[in-house]
């Protein structure tokens, strides 16, 4: 399924991120939930404003990317901008991003949730 915005367009990526091509790390997981700490402001970069709107309620990084039709990589850069100025708070996933399994208590909770669907 193709989407209308060609997110691979280098010019658009350049504009959105101010020329930066990479974020400085893996600070935002795909499922990190982002919460806005303030309302969008007049004159703000439109992508920043859109993120603050979406994140009035917790919203995963991957959902922000889908809603804005932007690649994850670009969204991470935008989120770093917003975090640097205290306008969002990330709720990071609490499953170790290592080879170890999550503990059984968490998995029991997941099982309950699934069975109640």
């Amino acid at each position, binding site marked *: *399924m193709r989407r209308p915005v060609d997110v691979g367009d280098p010019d658009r990526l350049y504009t959105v991120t101010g020329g930066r091509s990479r974020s400085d790390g893996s600070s935002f*997981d795909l499922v990190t939930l982002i919460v806005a700490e303030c309302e969008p402001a007049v004159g703000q970069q439109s992508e920043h404003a859109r993120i603050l*709107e979406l994140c009035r*309620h917790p919203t995963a990084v991957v*959902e922000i990317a889908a809603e804005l039709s932007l690649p994850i990589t670009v969204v991470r850069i935008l989120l770093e901008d917003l975090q640097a100025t205290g306008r969002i708070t990330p709720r990071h996933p609490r499953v170790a991003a290592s080879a170890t*399994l999550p503990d*059984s208590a968490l998995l029991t909770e997941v099982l309950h949730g699934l069975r109640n669907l």
Partner: protein
Amino acid sequence: MGSATSELPSSRTPLRDTAENGLKIVVVGGFGVGKTTLVRSVSEIRPLNTEEVMTQAGAGVDEMPESTGKTTTTVAFDFGRISLNDRLVLYLFGAPGQKRFWFLWDRLFAGTLGAVVLVDTRRMDESWYAIDRLEHHGTPFVVAVNRFDDDSARHSLEEIRAALALPAHVPLIECDARVRSSGKDVLITLVDHLHHLARERELTA
């Protein structure tokens, strides 16, 4: 931007404000095996589509423009969401299973609870790579056979297990990806399996 209540398109269902921990499960499999169908049947939102633009340098890459030493690839994947309770949200990712997407997998698998390998018995060879890769990663997984109506062979699960060289401890089940309860059973089988593994480890630790 109108009033506060028209803040979001009506198609978007926001998470509860108490949501705080995002979990991941990956569904992998070959083209047209039913990944999106499975995600859709269990998701509380219409599956969304997004992209990773990956710039890679180095080993394992087919095309390497001499000028930059880098190549950029765009990979699309879709995902759905299940709110498990006030705090926990499970995201399901449908990922293409072909070898050339290995770099996407490395990203998706980081911190994932586990994976579902979706198999079409008419094209079983497409599952090999996914299974091999998951074992290599140490990512726990289950295998779900998505039965298509025009599958005349109707291999038994034992035959499929043998054909995939699947170890006895890996759960293997049948499903119909179009049916919500069936999709739900696949997820429960996976999390049950993960729970067993976690209990085993905790008891021997």
